């Protein structure tokens, strides 16, 4: 049922958090130029323990606790990249990336172009993102559109342990800067990770469930939500196709268009506010590319166009199975 390009030989079962840790470890082993930097990533192993044990094993020179200053973290990473390093930066929570926004959009994103390729920026900026963990303000944001609108950056998000393991390594190996969005509420979900597989290309979307009546497009935390929705729909006899975009920028429109040409109906799902969220770009491009295939407008499910609410309201704010299926119903009613 899954088109996953990873080999089917059984791997190890682990959480997404552990898979990221294993992926980072392998990247540190593979290339001495890989360095990790961020707040509390050393002894503590990061507030989500994604870097647990790495400073102990690779030393303070390669796994660097940074002063509490995000612009400084990213700005010095730019300098390290200029010196030939491949910095992997951790931003502690989504809501704390904005102090580094200037360095990211004006420096990281533009350096390769500005220098006509002479100064590449092989940098990964890891951001645990999204809601659903009952956190206080600034700990549940989905800033992907802010980065995807920025030329020069690549933006990806993993939705499962296997992708987490592979995509982090691919992102680190890439000579372009990558905003790497980790769905923090899925850190504890387990999956099979085959460490000998050949991973799918980083920017390739994946059909994670085939169907015929409508296409659900998601990435990161919402992939599971969409799979659950498709499962529920199947019980009512409706076959929904689910695509895990994996890459938010660039978008793999070929995989998307193939699906839309089959189903004729699309629902996009993300946690970020709808207005100018990824759903907008998807809707625009799909309508451009598949105008005659669409039976209904692309419908968008997302967070409200409000600040992220206090925890006791987040279940309203966050798209869930029901809101996805409601949109599917509306799409089918066209």
């Amino acid at each position, binding site marked *: 049922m899954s088109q996953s390009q990873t080999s089917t030989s059984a791997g190890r079962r682990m959480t997404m958090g552990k898979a990221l840790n294993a992926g980072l470890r392998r990247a540190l082993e593979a290339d001495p130029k890989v360095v990790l930097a961020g*707040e*509390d990533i*050393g*002894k*503590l*192993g990061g*507030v989500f323990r994604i870097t647990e044990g790495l400073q102990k094993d690779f030393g303070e020179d390669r796994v660097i*606790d*940074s*002063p*509490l*200053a995000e*612009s*400084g973290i990213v700005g010095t990473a730019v300098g390290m990249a200029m010196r030939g390093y491949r910095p992997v930066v951790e931003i502690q929570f989504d*809501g*704390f990336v*904005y*102090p580094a926004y200037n360095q990211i959009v004006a420096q990281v994103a533009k350096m390769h172009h500005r220098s006509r390729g002479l100064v590449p920026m092989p940098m990964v900026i890891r951001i645990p993102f999204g809601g659903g963990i*009952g*956190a*206080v*303000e*600034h*700990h549940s944001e989905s800033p992907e559109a802010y980065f995807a609108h920025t030329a020069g950056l690549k933006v990806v998000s993993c939705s499962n342990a296997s992708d987490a393991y592979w995509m982090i390594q691919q992102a680190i190996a890439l000579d372009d800067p990558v905003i790497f969005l980790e769905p923090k509420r899925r850190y504890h979900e387990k999956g099979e990770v085959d460490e000998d597989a050949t991973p799918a290309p980083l920017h390739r979307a994946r059909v994670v469930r085939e169907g015929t009546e409508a296409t659900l497009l998601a990435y990161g935390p919402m992939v599971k939500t969409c799979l659950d929705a498709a499962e529920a729909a199947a019980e009512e006899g409706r076959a929904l196709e689910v695509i895990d975009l994996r890459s938010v920028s660039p978008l793999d429109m070929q995989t998307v268009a193939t699906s839309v040409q089959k189903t004729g109906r699309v629902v996009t799902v993300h946690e970020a506010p*709808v*207005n100018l969220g990824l759903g907008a770009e998807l809707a625009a491009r799909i309508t451009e590319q598949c105008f005659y295939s669409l039976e209904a407008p692309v419908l968008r499910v997302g967070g*409200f*166009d*409000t*600040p992220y*609410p*206090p*925890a*006791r*309201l*987040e279940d*309203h*704010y966050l798209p869930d199975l*029901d*809101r996805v299926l*409601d949109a599917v119903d509306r799409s089918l009613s066209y």
Partner: protein
Amino acid sequence: MSEHSGSSGGELVQLLTPQGERIDHPDFSYSGSDDEIAAHLRDMVLVRRIDAEATALQRQGELGIWTSLLGQEAAQIGAGRALRSQDVVFPSYREHGVAWCRDVDPLRLLGLFRGVDLGGWDPHAAKFFLYAIVIGAQTLHATGYAMGLEKDGEVGNNDPERDAAVISYFGDGATSQGDVNESFVFASSYNAPVVFFCQNNQWAISEPIERQSRIPLYRRADGFGFPGIRVDGNDVLAVKAVTEQALERARSGNGPTLIEAFTYRMGAHTTSDDPTKYRLDDELEQWRGKDPIERVKAYLSRAGAIDQAWLEELQAESDALAVRLREDCLTMPDPDVAASFENVYAEQTPYLAEQQAAYAEYTASFEEGN
């Protein structure tokens, strides 16, 4: 390389030793009576009790997270009680003790951590602005507010009822943040009536102060052209004396001061944190000997200003407070989803109104459906 001194040494202002002895300082003195000191003790005991109850509530799943002030009571009560009613506070997220001094109902603090709101008190009424979670942001707000005070002529009138100052709280880690340094630039450039109150509790989550600075933090002010001073943050008398002087300096139009309250975070960073991963029991043990409450108890007992009965009464008061807080917390109503859409704008947009209506319709249909 590091010049961090311990809690003693000539540069640290101290008026009450860990053993509870009052000592003199050439520049600062505490002028209050023993009754006032007893009032500080009461404040500290009560906020420690509030803190403990909140921690318990979090452990029981009633709060999402809690930021404990354990160990920092003197820094907060000393500074909080130095304020005049017209002064204005810009806290970070750990200033429950200062909130207490501003008569903010502790229940309102719990609301934020329970996730029922984003800060449930009235910042203007309390002259205590909302907690700031993004490190350092509030120091610029404080500076701007202070610039406003100046424009309004609320500074330098030689009128103790009117002249006002602003105080902004932040941690040792925060001093690395661009915003905090920019607030120093602006405060200095405009000579704004603001006191920067840094609680150096030695840790920014897992990072020791040495990661942020290799010299004592109070000296940061030197680089920006205004005075910095280090005070024993576990000494409520010294903190109050130092803060009063800095506030008065601001109110009278002499500009900003940086206070570094040298203290210690006795607990975890938050209830989500596990400090055993990064720090040694030794250190904790050493700081236990400098407890901000014990030294005041020792002094007041020795001075005969309090006795066992007084302490028992305080104990009873603090237990009652905790019971009340717990009850109120458990019965705090969940917010209505309408709150998500309200106040996003002062002038609501048709778009958001439609979104709200559509969601209401959706949930309604859903309820019918069930």
